[in-house]
């Protein structure tokens, strides 16, 4: 509930402020968003599994974001930025899908 409220609040603030993404952040923000989404879905699944932990969620959220940004940064430095970004997106996407599948099994038993 509270995180949902926070998400809605963030969306509203974003819509109101119309933020411009700074240039240095532009390559990292999409990956960071996907990583954070992965953490959120993981947290949802953990709640349903009964193993949710706030600290783990917070740490995994921040860590996911940082690691994803670092991987992109490293890829940029190595000249394989776009490929590495694609790889990270694919991995995170697979994880999100698997988490969503688990959530679905929990909630709908199907």
């Amino acid at each position, binding site marked *: 509930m509270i995180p949902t409220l926070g998400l809605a609040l963030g969306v509203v603030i974003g819509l109101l402020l119309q933020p411009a993404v700074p240039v240095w952040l532009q390559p990292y923000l999409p990956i960071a968003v996907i990583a954070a989404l992965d953490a959120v879905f993981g947290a949802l699944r953990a709640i349903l599994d009964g*193993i949710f932990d706030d600290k783990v969620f917070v740490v995994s959220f921040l860590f996911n974001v940082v690691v994803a940004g670092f991987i992109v940064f490293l890829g940029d430095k190595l000249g394989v930025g776009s490929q590495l970004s694609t790889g990270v997106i694919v991995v995170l996407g697979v994880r999100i899908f698997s*988490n969503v599948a688990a959530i679905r099994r929990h909630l709908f038993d199907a």
Partner: protein
Amino acid sequence: MSTREPQDARLEPEPEPEAEHEPREAQPGPPEAEHEPPEGEPGPQAARDPRRAWHRLLRAGAPRATRANALAMLLAGALGFAIIAQVRQTSIEGLENLREDELVRIFAGVDRDGDRLGDDISELESSLERLRGQSTNEEEAQRSAQQRLEALGILAGTAPAHGPGVVMTVRDPERQVTAPMVLDAIQELRDAGAEAIQVGDVRVVADTWFTQADEGLSVSGTVVRPPYVIRAIGDGNTLAGAMEIPGGVSATVRRAGGETDIQISDEVEIDALLTLSPPQYARPVPTSTP
């Protein structure tokens, strides 16, 4: 927060609030570092029941004022904010996000468009140049033709004329002024540079002729009665001087008993017109130059 490791952070499925942090050594599940187990691992048995799952979800979502909850809210807010920012960024970004082949395709399209438009431009420019040249030529030709028309109209008597000149009135109470005298006057005026001449209401041109008539003069068949008013356009002083020279027109008329009155005017109207009839016998000799 607590001191336990994430590996230990297994909460009992049944009696949670999840936000509490009693470390529990639950069943030694697979040691995942994060809280989501790998795909395919069956969750705890209790979570298998959908009703319980919903219940659990609701309970987890219940507002509790813990630091972790506030932190989660903060993170979720940041996530929403970042999503919106990224969406906006993506929507305002132009070509940066396109792949190489798309860029190549767009570039080729732009290149082709540019070539085509360049061709169009040069074509239209040459067309414009041509039309402009044509119109200049046509205007030039029209202007010179108009000038020729005006000059010839004045010469042939088909166009009215005005300008500086003289108006000479020849009074002839005794009917002694003859056609040759008037003809002499005309010749003198022409000699003095008169460009358009009118006697009475008759325009004097190349084929004008004078003869005696019962009531005065016949000018090209039109009877003109005294006093004869001769209008001539030219340099007024020269024309008047030509009339007044000793032994000239005025003297001859005076000798014949008439009198002349010459007025120099800045604005003499020659308004008598002639109608041209095509020559019956004379044919122009073809020339190479138009």
